[in-house]
């Protein structure tokens, strides 16, 4: 493999790994704030128990997210020195702001994690609020930089390739920011909500049907349910913006080869360059034009209208897009079903098939998140800065990229394995500390039923 392929592989793996932890850094603090706030208000110890358990898990999750994020900040330069030399002055500003947000998050997390016995209950609760805010701000700032890579504005290129009229604020507030930022933020809450719900659904399936599990599940699903509605709205806006701003990405998302009016929507299927069409998919006539422009006869540009060298890989982008949208819709239906049952029966449902589906929804939401990033990143190819700088021209010429990739693969596998093992262990320890009595009687109930 050449350096470009290895650099992409390494960067992509790092991003995939980091994003799963990063979204928890955005979502979990909000859940901890809510749970601890409810405890302060109601003095109901179950809320405190939830907040304390989450804070312990978060101690590990945040650290892994922080160090994997550090890897990314290094890799931006180490793998793509030409990209950073070109772009740093234009899109560095949101990264610098993100540095401060990360700083505040780390500081208040230190106070929160280690301050349970040093701060008054109200002061302790207050320290959780800056964590939630700066976690969200971090995500917004970083995605601004990514949005700029999709719609690079805020500069001019001189005849000799030099940068002129650099306006870093305009770059940060580039056109994609308005759609990418909200979509990423709500997606972080979607994933956190479903992952938390998944943990408590799994506990309930194993017979731990107690107040803590029900509330943990309900709180997770409240976040996931509200956020996935917004994810639908912001995702729709994003797709329609891509239709205007990045037509090649849009054509790849939909597997559309031929430029046409009244373009059909392809559900599933594989776009084949050799046949210039999507095979094995379901075709919905005119639906694409309707969705993209609210007009069934609107023209949509096809891949064929771009030089071969400027096209993203439609198989990757189309399949990622359909996975995101399809699985996302399923998750939305699941959340709606959960809340319909909960509101009708005025309590958290404990039917086993539903709980089983909720357990799967956690990992599924991570898959949706990753698929969404695949659409953004594979869809922007072959450019690292859309229309300006090609990915192939940005990679490092340094040696030993292969071993670096191998080493990081091993490190990430080790981190993922150990994190999972320790989270299970933390849960087990918490149960042991709080006494197994309640658990055992719950398990007996399950045996009887």
């Amino acid at each position, binding site marked *: 493999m050449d350096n470009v392929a290895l650099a992409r592989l390494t960067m992509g793996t790092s991003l995939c790994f980091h994003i799963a932890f990063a979204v928890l850094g955005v979502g979990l603090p909000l859940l901890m704030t809510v749970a601890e706030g409810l405890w302060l208000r109601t003095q109901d110890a179950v809320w405190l128990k939830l907040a304390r358990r989450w804070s312990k898990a978060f101690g590990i999750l945040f650290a892994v997210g922080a160090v994997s994020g550090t890897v990314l900040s290094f890799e931006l330069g180490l793998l793509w020195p030409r990209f950073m030399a070109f772009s740093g002055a234009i899109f560095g500003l949101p990264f610098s702001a993100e540095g401060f947000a990360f700083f505040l998050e780390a*500081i208040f997390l230190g106070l929160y994690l280690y301050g349970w016995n040093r701060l008054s209950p109200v002061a302790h609760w207050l320290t959780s609020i800056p964590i939630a805010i700066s976690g969200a701000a971090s995500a917004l700032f970083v995605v601004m930089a990514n949005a700029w890579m999709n719609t690079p504005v805020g500069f001019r290129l001189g005849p000799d390739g030099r940068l002129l009229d650099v306006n870093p604020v305009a770059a940060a507030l580039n056109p994609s920011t308005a759609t990418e930022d909200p979509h990423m933020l709500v997606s972080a809450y979607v994933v956190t909500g479903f992952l938390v719900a998944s943990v408590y659904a799994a506990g309930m399936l194993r017979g731990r049907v107690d107040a803590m599990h029900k509330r943990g599940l309900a709180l997770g699903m409240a976040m996931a349910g509200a956020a996935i509605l917004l994810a639908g709205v912001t995702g729709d806006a994003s797709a329609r913006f891509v239709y205007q701003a990045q037509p090649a990405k849009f054509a790849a998302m939909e597997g559309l080869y031929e430029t046409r009016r009244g373009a059909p929507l392809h559900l599933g299927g594989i776009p084949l360059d050799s046949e210039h069409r999507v095979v094995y998919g379901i075709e919905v006539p005119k639906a694409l034009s309707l969705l993209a422009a609210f007009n069934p006869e609107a023209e949509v540009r096809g891949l064929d209208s771009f030089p071969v060298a400027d096209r993203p890989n439609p198989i990757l982008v189309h399949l990622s897009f359909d996975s995101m949208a399809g699985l996302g819709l399923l998750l939305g239906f699941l959340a709606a079903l959960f809340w319909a049952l909960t509101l009708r029966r005025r309590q958290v449902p404990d039917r086993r098939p539903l709980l089983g589906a909720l357990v799967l929804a956690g990992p599924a939401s991570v898959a949706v998140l990753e698929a969404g990033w695949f659409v953004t990143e594979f869809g922007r190819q072959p450019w690292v800065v859309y229309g300006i700088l090609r990915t192939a021209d940005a990679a490092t010429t340094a040696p030993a990229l292969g071993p670096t990739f191998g080493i990081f693969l091993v490190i990430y596998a080790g981190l993922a394995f150990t994190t999972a*093992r320790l989270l299970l*262990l933390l849960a087990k320890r918490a149960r042991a500390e709080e006494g197994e009595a309640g658990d055992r009687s719950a398990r007996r109930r399950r045996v009887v039923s």
Partner: protein
Amino acid sequence: MTKPEVVAAILWLSLTAYAVLAGADFGGGLWDLLAIGPRAADQRQAIAEAMGPVWEANHVWLIFMIVGLFTAFPSAFGILALALYLPLTIAMTGIVLRGAAFAFRGHAQEAVGPLSPWGAIFGAASSITPFFLGTAAAAVVSGSIKVTGGRLASDFTAGWATPYGGLVGAFAVAICAYLAATYLTVETEGTPLEDDFRRRAIAAGLVSGVLGIAGLVLAPAAAPPLAQALFGRGLPLTVLALLNGPLALLAVWRSRPRLARIAVIAQVVFVLWAWAIGQWPYLVPTDVTIQGSAAPESTLSALLVVIAAGMALLLPSLWLLFRVFKARNPAVIL
């Protein structure tokens, strides 16, 4: 001062903060690895307690420096990232493993104790990172990174995979160990551990002193730009460092932990700023200057605004963090 110089000075300040704060965390990892004797477990416990609430915040100074460097000096950043791919990649693996291992240990101690693989990884990774950051610094100060026509003209081992690189790397590790042991004498004041860490501080102080002197003596031959920096414009600070070094060691020796801590911090500050002031106006001597690699004026102005606003939030928060957890030894705040 011009805007690029102001930003460069701010970035150097954050490197200084990273060195005296996170440097001690790396040193803590080394002492964890080397914990020995009847109180080994207590030593590890003291290190973990001192680092726990602050290490993640300390680590962010590095992130801040990286993003500040690529925002304000993008072409210099591109050259450094390319030329120093190997040592920085190794340092980065150390950062990942150190942080993750510490968190794993701290939050799930009975499963991942000091003697588990993650325990050893914590100590080993804590030494790898400062060592390779040190070798990378050696590559910069030795003037081995060559740039012609905006492109890297030296090879990927230039300046760091050398005996002098190894010397500077070892010096960085020793300084980290010195900082950590000195801070820990304050953290453990009045307990039997204080003497354990005092002896470790003396050892690390002597080693870093020897390595530092060796670095200074060898500089004219191995790193001419560094020699010019330290004996040129940086001379007053070099002299201060040479005077302060023995005094710091004496303070450690005489069991004056608080004074020793200030003196050791001062030592790091003198060394870093002697280098920086001496090396001005170069970012990467002798081909990349601060002015020449600076981002456009508009970027620097916007960056300074972000930094001012960020600091207004950051500094009170940092004060609160250290106030809550280091109230017994507030001098750590600086």
